């Protein structure tokens, strides 16, 4: 007799599996990371002004993250749908909420790694400056924003996985939803960099928005992921 | 009337779109109603 496993254990196993697959295949590291770096360089070409770049660096980092999120989510579900493993997980009766949380966790780890790289790139390429009190804000902002992005991405990625036209449907569904994260994370990051004369303390209310966002969609995803991945 | 062009565009498109929607809905309905038996139309 098989027993239903708790959400936490399913989530841990799924997250470990996804991360191990990434460690082996290195698709995200070898393809998505360079892509995101390239986007940062392209922004510099397009804006072509050092002062402007320093001023909008926060927004560019989060835009590059959003573009990469789409690709990472598609990769995350391609791993499962390539040989029917997502269906096998459904047939095995795994708690869908556990699959949801696990995949979101794995995506979150990959995104945070990517964002660290992007912020280093911003310091080097766009000449932003970060002070100690800003660093605390920045870390909190990155963690809460990334949680929200990963949860929403996984939610809509699960819906579009295996359906026709998923490449185009995913951004259409996902981007409007993550708009508050883009706004909030960008403002908080600008405060952390004190770009455009912003004060570090201005950023904290935005972190509140990001936390609420992640909580709302985390709960929404746990409740609804099962019905979204059903045929 | 000032801004006659703008006002004409607003009234024109709004009502044209509504009429188009109504016509499409009616023709679809008429088309299907002749194929679907009355027992499947709870409103009749």
């Amino acid at each position, binding site marked *: *007799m*098989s027993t239903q*496993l708790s959400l936490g254990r399913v989530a841990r196993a799924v997250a470990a*599996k996804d991360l191990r697959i990434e460690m*082996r295949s290195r698709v995200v590291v070898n393809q998505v990371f360079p892509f995101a770096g390239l986007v940062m360089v392209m922004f510099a070409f397009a804006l072509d002004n050092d002062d402007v770049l320093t001023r909008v660096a926060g927004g560019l980092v989060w835009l590059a993250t959003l573009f990469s999120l789409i690709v990472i989510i598609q990769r995350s579900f391609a791993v499962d749908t390539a040989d*029917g493993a997502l269906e096998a997980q*459904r*047939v095995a009766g795994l708690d869908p909420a556990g699959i949801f949380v696990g995949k979101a966790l794995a995506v979150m780890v990959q995104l945070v790694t990517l964002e660290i790289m992007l912020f280093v790139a911003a310091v080097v390429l766009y000449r932003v400056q970060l002070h100690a009190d800003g660093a605390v804000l920045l870390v909190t902002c990155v963690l809460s924003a990334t949680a929200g992005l990963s949860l929403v991405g996984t939610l809509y990625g699960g819906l579009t996985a295996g359906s026709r036209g998923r490449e185009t449907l995913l951004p259409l569904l996902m981007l409007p939803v993550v708009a508050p994260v883009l706004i909030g994370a960008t403002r908080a990051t600008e405060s952390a960099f004190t770009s455009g004369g912003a004060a570090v303390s201005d950023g904290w209310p935005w972190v509140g928005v990001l936390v609420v966002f992640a909580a709302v969609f985390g709960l929404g995803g746990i409740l609804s992921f099962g019905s979204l991945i059903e045929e | 009337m000032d801004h006659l062009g703008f006002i004409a565009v607003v009234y024109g498109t709004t009502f044209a779109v509504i009429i188009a929607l109504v016509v499409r809905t009616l023709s679809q309905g008429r088309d299907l109603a002749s194929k679907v038996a009355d027992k499947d139309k709870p409103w009749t």
Partner: protein
Amino acid sequence: MSIVVDFRDAVVVFNGFPALAEASIEVRRGEIVLLQGPNGAGKTTLLRACAGLLPIVRGEASVLGVDLCVDRQSVRPRVGLLGHANGLFADLTISENVLFWAQMVGAKVAEVASTLQRFGIDGRLAEQKVMQLSAGQKRRCALACLVVRRAELWLLDEPHAGLDATARDEIDAIIREACAAGATVLIASHELERARGLATRSVSVVAGRVVS
């Protein structure tokens, strides 16, 4: 509970087409039933419906005592479906794949090791990535996953397809062993000679119906 699969005039629609058209079938515990019939007759749909993947549009259907018209979820952990896809993660090794499923049902690591050994997957082979394996090795790996999941009802769709004679023999042995351990098996196959030798009973699926 001796009747494992019980379909009565079940209709299952796939892409707007009645792939199962008022099909009725009864399978008892411990049977190995061969489903034969031409392509498009509804064999795959019957297996997927048994796994609770497809909604029953009309008629009645129950699997392992669960009414599929009401609840298609709770039966799933107890059945194992091996379709055209193996459901494996290509970038992981065999033992990691099997371990993943073992974790999901709370099986012990020692149990995984012994299962792999029984399947002749040990040593260097177990540490190879799935994408480097042959079709037969992949199929064996997928069956090993079913074994560690301790499925009560095995639903096998063309398990012999694309395999050489040795691999087919190995798969037959695995199926017999599972059956001896108390599992019930439904096999859809074109390898009639081979599958008849394996099955305790065979039925035909014709135009969405089951004919004995």
